[in-house]
C-alpha cells in the first residue's frame, strides 16, 4: 500500500474544502476502500476521514430522524444501526431485510449508509490490477465480457463494462423511492435514489452522479403503505456473506385483494439497482396471485442479455421476482 496523508476535518465545510482534488479519497467505514487500497486498485495520496464531522443543520450525520414526509437517514448512520432501528423496522422492514442480507455483522458495524452507496463493483477483473478493466483503467478493455462473468450484469451493460453494483441496501432504497441529499460547496441538492447510480455506457469508471467535490449527507425515504407486504429475497451461493446472484426488493400495497401500488427493484443484475417500472405498472390493479406475479416477472425481463457465465440469470431473475412477490403478498 502506498503511503498517504490522513486528515480528519471537524466540520462539513472543512471536509468540502479538501475533497475533490486529485488523489483525495473520502473514507467513512472503509470496509471497501481499504480493500481496494490493499489490492492497489486505488492509491490515494490523501484520505479524508468524515467520521467526525460536527452537526449539520443541528443534527449528526449519524442520526435517523423523522421528517414531515418520511424518514431521514444520516449518511454516516451505520448499516447495523439502521437495520435495527425501530422506525425503520416498523415503516420500512424491506430496508432492514436488505441491510441484514448484506455483508456480515462485523462489516455492517463499520459500514455507513453513504459508504454503502459508494462501494465499487466486486468484479474480479476490477480487483486484479494485472487484468484489463475499463472501470479501473479506461481503455484497457473489459475482462469479464468474454471471461468469467457468472456474477455480472444482464441489464443496462455496455461494451465497455458488464459489472454490477454489489449493494443490497441500495436495491431497497431504489424500490422505496428514496431521495439522496448531497452537499457541495454551492449548497445542498437532492437526487432521486434511482438516478444516483449510473449505467456504464462509455464511462464505466464513473459509478454514480456524485461530483468529486460533493458529499452524501443523507437519504430520505417517503412514507408509504408497503410495510405490511414487502420482502427482500437474495439468492446467493451461500447463506451469508456472499454477493447476490440475483436479489429482489418487492413491496406491495394491497387493498381489498387488489394491488394498489407496487415497487420492485433488482440487485446483482446491473451497474445500478435495477428498478422494474413496467412490472410495477403491470401489477397495479391486479390481484396478488402467482400467475400475475409470473407475468410481471416475464415483463421485467425484457431487454435482458446474458453473456455466457451469467445467462442462468435470465431464468433465475424472473423466478426470484415471482418468489419475492409471493413472500411479499404472504402467499408463502
Amino acid at each position: 500500500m502506498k503511503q498517504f496523508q490522513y486528515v480528519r476535518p471537524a466540520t462539513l465545510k472543512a471536509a468540502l474544502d479538501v475533497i475533490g482534488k486529485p488523489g483525495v479519497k473520502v473514507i467513512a467505514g472503509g470496509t471497501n476502500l481499504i480493500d481496494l487500497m490493499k489490492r492497489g486498485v486505488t492509491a490515494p495520496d490523501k484520505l479524508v476521514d468524515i467520521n467526525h464531522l460536527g452537526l449539520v443543520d443541528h443534527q449528526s450525520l449519524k442520526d435517523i430522524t423523522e421528517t414531515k414526509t418520511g424518514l431521514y437517514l444520516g449518511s454516516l448512520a451505520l448499516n447495523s444501526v439502521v437495520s435495527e432501528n425501530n422506525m425503520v423496522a416498523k415503516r420500512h422492514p424491506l430496508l432492514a431485510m436488505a441491510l441484514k442480507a448484506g455483508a456480515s455483522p462485523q462489516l455492517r458495524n463499520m459500514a455507513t449508509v453513504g459508504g454503502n452507496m459508494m462501494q465499487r463493483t466486486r468484479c474480479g477483473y476490477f480487483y486484479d490490477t494485472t487484468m484489463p478493466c475499463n472501470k479501473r483503467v479506461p481503455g484497457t478493455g473489459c475482462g469479464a465480457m468474454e471471461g468469467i462473468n457468472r456474477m455480472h450484469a444482464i441489464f443496462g451493460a455496455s461494451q465497455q463494462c458488464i459489472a454490477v453494483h454489489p449493494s443490497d441496501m441500495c436495491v431497497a432504497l431504489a424500490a422505496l423511492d428514496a431521495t439522496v441529499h448531497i452537499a457541495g460547496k454551492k449548497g445542498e441538492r437532492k437526487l432521486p435514489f434511482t438516478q444516483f447510480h449510473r449505467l456504464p455506457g462509455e464511462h464505466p469508471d464513473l459509478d454514480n452522479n456524485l461530483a468529486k467535490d460533493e458529499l452524501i449527507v443523507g437519504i430520505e425515504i417517503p412514507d408509504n403503505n408497503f410495510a405490511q407486504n414487502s420482502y427482500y429475497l437474495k439468492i446467493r451461493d451461500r447463506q451469508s456473506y456472499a454477493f447476490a446472484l440475483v436479489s429482489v426488493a418487492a413491496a406491495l400495497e394491497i387493498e381489498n385483494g387488489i394491488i394498489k401500488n407496487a415497487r420492485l427493484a433488482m440487485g446483482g443484475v446491473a451497474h445500478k439497482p435495477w428498478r422494474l417500472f413496467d412490472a410495477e405498472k403491470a401489477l397495479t390493479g391486479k390481484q396478488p396471485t402467482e400467475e400475475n406475479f409470473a407475468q410481471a416477472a416475464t415483463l421485467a425481463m425484457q431487454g435482458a442479455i446474458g453473456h455466457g457465465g451469467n445467462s442462468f440469470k435470465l431464468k433465475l431473475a424472473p423466478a426470484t421476482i415471482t418468489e419475492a412477490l409471493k413472500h411479499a403478498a404472504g402467499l408463502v
Partner: protein
Amino acid sequence: MKTAINKTMPSSAEGMSRVDGRLKVTGAAKYSAEYTPKGLTYGVLAGSTITKGNIIAIDTKAAERAPGVLAVITHLNAPKVPGDQPEKGKAADAKGALKVFYDDKIYYNGQPVAIVVADTFERALFAASLVKAQYKTEKHITSLPDNRDKGFPPRGEGTYKRGTEDAWKLAPFKVEQEYIVPTVTHNPMELHAIIANWDTDNKLTVWDKTQGVKDTQGDLAHLFKLPKENVQVHSQFVGGAFGSALRTWPHEVAAILAAKVVKRPVKVVLSRADMFTSVGYRPFTWQKIGIGATADGKLTGITHEAAGQTSSYENFTEGPTGVSQSLYACPNVNTKYHLVALDIATPTWMRGPGEATGAFALESALDELSYQLKLDPVELRLRNYAQTDPGSGKPFSSKFLNEAYQLGSDHIGWKDRKQEPGTVKQNGWYVGYGMGGGMFGAYRAGATIRAKFNADGTLLLQSAVSDIGPGTGTAMVLIAAEQLGIPAEKIRFELGDSSLPNAPTQGGSATTASVGSAVYKACADLKEKFQKLAGNGATNNPDYTKILKDSGLPSLEVVSETDGGNGMQKYAMNSWSVHFVKVLVNAATGVVKIDKVACVSDCGKVISPKTARSQVIGGAIGGLGMALMEESIIDHRYGRYINNNFADYHVPVNADIPQIDALFVNKPDPIINPMGAKGMAEIALIGMAAAVANAVYNASGKRVRDLPITPDKVMA
C-alpha cells in the same frame, strides 16, 4: 504448549476439552508468524503476472530505493540452494518442489519472481509492488477439460484390473456418467508463514507452519546441505492445514535465502491470494464411471476412469479410483488414472486426497443405479457389502460399516425418505435425503516418546509431532492418563519442535495410531521401571511419587520407540464412514439448504470423544463446502485465479451449517495398535459431497455431477 493445563479443561459427558483450548481462544497460542526474534525483517513475494515464458528483464531499482528496503532478491542475484539438483533446466528441486529464483523460466501465474525484504511489512509490501518484470510469453494451457487428450499415466500406477474389463456394459441395469471435482483450495484460516534465521553460517532456525517438523527439518537440511541437527524447526501451533503444510514450498526456501542475504531473521506470510498458487490445492479431476448390476442389485462391474491435473514440472498423484477397487464386493473392476500437465502450480494432498474425489463419483453413480433398480441406496450397499478386501482377498483388520449404515439411517430418519424424487414438499421447499460412504487406509508409522515422571506427580511427554488442530495433545494425554492411572491434569504433552524425539508428519489420519502407540509403550515402560524400582513392594496400583521418594530420585525417564506395527501385512486396514444428509431445495431458485447431517465413523476406538466429535464436524463442513460452494476459478485466457479471496471463494459460514451429529461405532480395531484406534480425519470428509448431491436429487430430481452444487445448476 508451555502453559499448565490444570483448570483449563472442564470435563463433561462429551469427554475432556482440548488441552490447548484456552490458549487458542484467548489468543495466547503462538503461531509461526507471531514470533519476534531480534532484528526481525519482513519479506514480501512479487509474483509472475504471466503464466508461461521467460523473464527477459526485471527492474528492481525503484523497489531498492523505496524506504526501509534491505534487499530485493531475484533469479539474477539469489544465493544458490546448494542441495538443488545440478542439472540445468530442471525446474524441480531435490524434493520435487519448484526451485525458487533459480532461473528466468515461468511455470505458472503467480510464481515468485522476487522477494523484497524491508524493515516493516508495509514497506516491503509497497516496495514489492514496484518490482517490474518484462516477459517473453509462451502459449499456456490451464484447463483440464480442454486438454484431457494430453493425459498420461503416472509412472508405475494408473491402471488396475480384476475380472473382466468393462463387465458393467453387459449388466441389465447400468449407469455411465461423468463427474467433475473442480480445483479446491485448502484455505486454512491461518495463512502459511515462516520466520527464517541463520544463527551462524551453517545453523538455521525456522518458525514455520508445517504438518511435520521432522520432515521440514530433513528437507531444509537436504536443500541447504546442513547436518540435520543444525536445522531447528519450531511449529508450536498450526491454524489448520488440511494437507497444505505437508511439504516444503518455494516461499519457505525464499525466506531462508532472504535471511542469508540480509543476515537477519526474515518473516514471510503469504497473502490470501498467494494461498491459491503457493501451497497446493485439490486438483481439478474429471471422472467417468460405468457401473452395472443384476436385477437384485448385485454389482457385476465397475469401470472408473479419472484424469487429474498436475503441474508441468512435477507429477502429483493421488488415488481417486481406489474407492472403486475396494469399497464394494464386485467381481469385475477396472480403473484408469491419467495426469494432465498444465501450466499451473503443483497440487497437493488435501483432506481425503484421492478418495474424496473418487467417492464423489462412485457414491453418486451408485445412487443413480439405485434409482434404476428402484432399490433403497443403503440396501444396495448392503447387498454388495465386502466382508474381505475385494482387491487382495485379505481379511479386514476391522470393519463395522454395516453398523454405521444402521446408526446413520436411524439418526437421520431415513425411513421418511421417499424413493421417488421430488415428491416431498414442506413450506415450498422440496425435502430429500441422501447418503454417501467413504474409506481411507488406516496407517501407523514408527514414533518415539520421551516420558518423564516427576516427583511432584506430573508427567511430561515429548515428541516431534505437529498438531494442526485435531487435538493431538489432548488424545495423547488421555492415552497416558488411562495407562498410568493418573489424572489428565497432571500430564503435559510437548510437540512442534524438531529437537524432540522422532515422530511422523501429521497426515493421512495416522497420528493417534502412530504417536499414540509410542505413548502407550512409554507408559508401559515407565510402569515397568517403577515396578523394578519398587522391588518387593510392587503392586498393580503403584504410588509413583512414593516410589520416587523412597528411591530418592527426582524423576524417572524413559525414551520409548515403536515401529509401524507387526503382522499387519496379513490384513487390509481401513477406516470407514458414511454420511447421511437431509436437504431442502427450492426448485425455482435452486437454493439448497442443508437441514440435518449425521456422520458415522468406524474408526476403531475413540480416544478423545470431544475432540473426535469436533474433528468430524470440521471434516463434514469441509465436505459441505466441497459439495455446495468451493471452487477455485481460473480465467484460462490469462491463467490467473479470478476468485482468490474470501469474498469470492466461498467456504461455509455459520448460516450454512445446521446441526451436525457425529456418531461413532467405537469398536476397537484389534490389529492396528494396542488402543484399537484408527484414523478419522479423512473419512469425516470423504463421501460427504456425494451424500449432498444424492440428497439434492432425491429432493428435486436434479442430478448435479459437476461440483459445486450452486443454485444455477439446481434451478428448474
